[in-house]
């Protein structure tokens, strides 16, 4: 294992992870609290001969990312709540046209301009449902700086493998916090590269909705001439209004993610084996939740934590199974109740409680512990 250990900020770790993953294109627009990702890549990408662009607005930034990705780039953009709202148009386009890209959302309080410099976890549902129409999405919620680096690498891999936008949802806490990071050597991590298709241009179709396999996206300009459109399209990429083509295309956008959930899912279980109360926590809140579990255990309450790392697709099966054994579930989150909806939907046997604090401060271990105690005494 690498001995390259550094103290770095969450946003810096994301930039570092992107570079290890082979990112060769960034386009963005300044926004707090994500701007460091752009600033760092504006320095590092040119030095390795790659492209950094600051665009005229958030929508343009993702447009440029998608244009580059169609040329074969491993492309990334970074933003925060209001910027992600603007980007939704192109998140839909990327989903529909199956263009790989990584979108960083360093979450801040909202709605609207909200709390630019303070943390929140209020974009979980925006990540899933923010654009119009039916589609699936992959979103990842790292809980710290080191994990931000490794999950950014995984995000690029998933984007290329499943031809989809992948979102990293951190927040102002993780983005600006400094922690120890073990920077891996490129040989120590899996990196999935963009490749030319293994068929000739004459035989290539940019989509294959019925095969059950993701067709590789041929980089444009390499002899594979095809058409890309946000209209519903068939395997050839040309628009179609045939009912069977429409249904297949819609099914595919969901199926290609959900039928591969075992490959995409990632979670951590902490002291769940004998737990009477389960905390479902993600991102920075899971750090306080972990401490609260320890506090509860010290006080004789059997608490455990389930931490989704891949938040979308949601770990439905795991929550469902855990709820069969565990009576009470607590979902602390820095929003007015988003992930709790998914937990309630899947936890058939348990009572589900929320702890929703959106005052611009992180949720503390004490706050979670107090709620655990309250529930256990009911």
């Amino acid at each position, binding site marked *: 294992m690498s001995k390259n250990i550094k103290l770095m900020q969450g946003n810096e770790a994301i930039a570092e992870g992107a570079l290890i993953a082979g990112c*060769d*294109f960034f*386009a963005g627009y300044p926004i707090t609290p994500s701007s460091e990702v752009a600033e760092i890549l504006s320095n590092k990408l*040119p*030095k390795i*001969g790659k*492209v950094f*662009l600051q*665009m*005229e*607005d958030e*929508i*343009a*930034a*993702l*447009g*440029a*990312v*998608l*244009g*580059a*990705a*169609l*040329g*074969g*780039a491993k*492309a990334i953009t970074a933003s925060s709540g209001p910027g992600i709202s603007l980007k939704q*148009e*192109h998140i839909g*386009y990327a989903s529909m046209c199956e263009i790989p890209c990584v979108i960083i959302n360093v979450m801040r309080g909202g709605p609207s301009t909200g709390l630019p410099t303070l943390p929140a976890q209020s974009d979980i549902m925006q990540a899933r449902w923010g654009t119009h129409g039916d589609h699936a999405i992959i979103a990842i919620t790292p809980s710290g700086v080191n994990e931000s680096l490794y999950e950014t690498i995984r995000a690029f891999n998933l984007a290329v493998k499943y031809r989809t936008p992948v979102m990293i949802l951190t927040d102002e806490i993780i983005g600006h916090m400094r922690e120890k990071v073990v920077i891996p050597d490129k040989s120590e991590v899996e990196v999935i590269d963009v490749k030319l298709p293994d068929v000739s241009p004459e035989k290539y179709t940019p989509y294959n909705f019925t095969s059950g396999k993701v067709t590789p996206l041929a980089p*444009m*300009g*390499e*002899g594979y*001439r*095809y*058409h*890309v*459109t*946000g*209209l519903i399209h068939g395997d050839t990429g*040309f*628009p179609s209004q045939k009912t069977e083509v429409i249904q297949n295309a819609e099914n595919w956008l969901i199926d290609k993610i959900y039928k591969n959930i075992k490959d995409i899912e990632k979670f951590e279980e902490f002291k769940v084996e004998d737990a009477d109360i389960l905390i479902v926590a993600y991102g920075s809140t899971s750090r306080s939740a972990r401490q609260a579990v320890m506090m509860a255990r010290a006080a004789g309450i059997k608490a455990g934590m389930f931490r989704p790392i891949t938040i979308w697709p949601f770990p439905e099966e795991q929550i469902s199974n855990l709820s069969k054994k565990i009576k009470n579930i607590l979902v602390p989150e820095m929003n007015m109740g988003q992930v709790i909806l998914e937990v309630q939907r899947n936890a058939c046997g348990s009572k589900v409680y929320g702890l929703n604090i959106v005052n611009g401060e992180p949720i503390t271990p004490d706050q979670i512990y107090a709620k655990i105690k309250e529930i256990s005494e009911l």
Partner: protein
Amino acid sequence: MIKTKFDYDYYLRKNTLPHIWCPGCGDGIILKALLRAIHKCGYSKDEVVITSGIGCASRLPGYVDFNTIHTTHGRALTFAIGIKMYKPKLKVITISGDGDALAIGGNHFIHAARRNIDMTLIVFNNYTYGMTGGQYSPTQPLDSYSTTTPFGNIEFPFDVCNLAQAAGATWVGRSTSYHAVQLEKFMVSALNHTGFSVLDVITNCHISYGRRNKMKSPVDMVKYQKEKAIAARSAENMSAEELTGRFKTGILFENNDKPEFSSEYYKKLESIKTK
């Protein structure tokens, strides 16, 4: 340089035809001029990328056998910038309607011009949102009618060329779908220009615009183009009064001295390496 004889079929995706455009629409004339111009420039089909936004004109890329991207409304230039910067050797062309380029895409238009990035924007300017039924666009003339200006338009229109030049484009021209030969010539010039080139093509939507403005048939609208177009050189000696209701055609502005963005970017990378 391609030495073969020009053949439309070589460039068309015939399996995607017939096109969606109404009988008599000018867009097909512009498409054909574009194919002839690309052939004259000698580009291979693999090196050409065409992006477009949303609207009638923006359906063009589907019909032509290049690397084609039918993007979102107004944003075609952003995709074009992305792929051009990543693969600067590609020849990038953007097709956009007047609403697409100048209303919803206005910000991208001025910023692409400001950067002077090497690509060609062709604006299919028919003064209307044809696909959605003929609402008024940012180029619709004063006092004309549309489905959303039933009492006449009181908004001042953009002049595509003046705006492009002011924002920093380095090749600016205007032709019409009536002047098909001139149109092809200007396209060749725009494509050969290094920098951001904007070609404003006045075209006809007799269905959505003409019918509401006493130009019911394609012939009426083609006559309008013929009669209202005034060569820039001839316009020099005409009074403002004489020019009212007319539009200048020609290569209106050209600057070959302003540095081009993608080559400047990669030059900068070289200079960083050597330090």
